[in-house]
């Protein structure tokens, strides 16, 4: 396909469609031998596409996408050409079918665009001189996929009435193409665009909501979406209830101590700070069952074992977390731990610190200064609360040993 120029960078859709075209053509060449029905069309298409000038090559539109979509669906490489009803005459016309409008210029619809969204494909139109070509409005907000919602049967073969129009003015308008066999007044075009956008959104939602691949109707999909949202909201309520029961009464002294500590650091590198706590949680579940290092301290051993048992069944599908960030996450873990301690008591802090320290051993610790800081803080903290004095002194000693 020498005729097609390289698509501009921002037109990913165009690239894709260009690839489609290439594939299509290649497939056509392969299959033209044993697809008698399609062969005539194949040759036509090939000649036409080779004759396609660079300009028009840029004008990818939904039609190609649709045809390619149909090719994807079927194993046969050239199945739907018959449906498409490309005209038999001339290369120019064959090309035109995919590009020009059904009817004449009167059906051209130009909407004043709100934003300069429509790609400047008009430049391409000059080559073959069909400026009247329309482009399907492309979704930039949604992710710039062209609409393939329409069934392939309806896809345009304008063919007979192909006209060569003059260059389209380079405007910011959205150009919409009317398809063959469809009404071309402005209302129905607008509505068709709106419908296509909605169907695209429905497709996204279908991917999102689990178990919706078989449902095709709008009403059914909406039903599933509503159910899913309701169930998610109920889950949030349930989880908040669980969190409320899981948190013991906290100590106000702790709050005051850690409040001072956390507030100033909230501003500095807050993203790095409590930041990677999500990664922390991920990592904790990842690494827990890979933890092999035997710990000298018995108390920590018990914690590790028990948490091992707890968390192994809950390991989520592994998240790709780079090991390099592991070291820095401990800082985060520490702070998260402290803030958690506010709410959930000292025991949590202690246990988490133990876990941190034991896992830290397996990693080259970039800096120990934070550890010292942590120990100091913990010392303060444990001094402040009476009942933890005994257990508190045990823990820092252990940690110091590891250092």
């Amino acid at each position, binding site marked *: 396909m020498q005729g097609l120029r390289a698509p501009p960078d921002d037109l990913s859709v165009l690239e894709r469609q260009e690839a489609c075209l290439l594939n299509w053509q290649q497939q056509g060449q392969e299959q033209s031998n044993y697809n008698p029905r399609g062969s005539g069309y194949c040759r036509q298409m090939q000649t036409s596409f080779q004759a396609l000038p660079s300009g028009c090559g840029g004008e990818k539109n939904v039609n190609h996408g649709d045809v390619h979509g149909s090719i994807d669906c079927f194993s046969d490489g050239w199945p739907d050409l018959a449906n498409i009803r490309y005209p038999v005459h001339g290369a120019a016309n064959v090309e035109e079918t995919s590009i020009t409008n059904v009817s004449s210029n009167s059906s051209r619809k130009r909407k004043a665009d709100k934003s300069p969204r429509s790609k400047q494909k008009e430049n391409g139109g000059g080559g073959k001189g069909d400026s009247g070509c329309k482009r399907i409005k492309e979704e930039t907000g949604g992710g710039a996929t062209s609409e393939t919602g329409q069934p392939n049967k309806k896809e345009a073969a304008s063919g007979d009435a192909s006209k060569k129009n003059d260059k389209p003015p380079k405007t910011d308008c959205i150009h919409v193409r009317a398809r063959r066999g469809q009404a071309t007044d402005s209302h129905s075009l607008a509505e068709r665009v709106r419908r296509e956008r909605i169907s695209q959104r429905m497709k996204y939602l279908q991917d999102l909501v689990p178990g919706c691949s078989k449902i095709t109707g709008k009403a059914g999909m909406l039903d599933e979406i509503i159910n899913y949202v309701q*169930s998610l909201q109920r889950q949030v309520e349930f989880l908040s209830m669980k969190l409320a029961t899981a*948190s013991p009464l906290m100590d106000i002294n702790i709050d005051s101590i850690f409040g001072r500590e956390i507030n100033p650091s909230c501003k500095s590198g807050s993203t790095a700070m409590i930041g990677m706590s999500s990664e922390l949680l991920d990592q904790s579940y990842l690494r827990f069952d890979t933890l092999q290092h035997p710990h000298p301290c018995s108390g920590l051993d018990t914690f590790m074992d028990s948490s091992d048992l707890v968390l192994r069944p809950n390991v989520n599908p592994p998240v790709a977390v780079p090991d390099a960030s592991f070291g820095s996450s401990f800082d985060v873990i520490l702070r998260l731990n402290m803030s958690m301690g506010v709410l959930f008591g000292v025991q949590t802090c202690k246990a988490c610190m133990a876990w941190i320290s034991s896992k830290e051993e397996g990693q080259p610790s970039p800096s120990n200064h934070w550890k010292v800081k942590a120990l100091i803080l913990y010392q303060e903290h444990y001094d402040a609360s009476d009942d933890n004095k005994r257990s508190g002194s045990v823990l820092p000693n252990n940690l110091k040993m590891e250092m």
Partner: protein
Amino acid sequence: MQATKSFERAFLKHLLRGFRLSAVSYKSMSLQERKSAIKLSADVAMASARGSRKWTRGLITKLSKEDDHRSFLRLILGTEYERLTKPCHGSWKIPRSKKIVRRSLRVCSRRKNNLRAPHGVKSSVLARTLVEKRTHALKRLVPGGESLDGYSLLDEALDYVISLRAQVDLMQKLLTTFEASKLSALSKCTLPERKASFVGEAGIHQQKLTEKAQLRPKLTL
């Protein structure tokens, strides 16, 4: 479609800050109050982590309808609070009388039905009513969705679902971490007992959550 890492980070940060802020009076709270405080923190955290979208604005506006929540929100969000509650251009909700609106909708739909299906095609009318009913239900579910039309409603619903899912995941992880560490601190139990209790509890907990997830409630319109 996944929520981004930055969203998760911001969510956790705000969540913990919210916990800390509301935790002052924890001792005197009942379970229900604590639960609602946690839920409030979680919702605010989700909305502030997402940024400025129609549903976040709607959510925060809804939450700040009560006075005692407003100060809480202000503390957490800081300057963003003012920005988020300022009504944006596209979503002015004009106060309308419900009776009048309902009457006009009925008239309009009747007129539309007469125009579009003069030959008495019942199925399309039925389909359209179903879709409309469900759209209304979705509007009620998605915060701030009352004033949105079909396409933007779907857009906001998409975003809302992603954020909700991330919220649920993060809260679940938080919960399991807390439970694990809390149970490990039970020094009284012997080791095998503790292990058993761990597994049991975690199993039950996980089971409950999956049951919740698989629950498919009947659609109430």
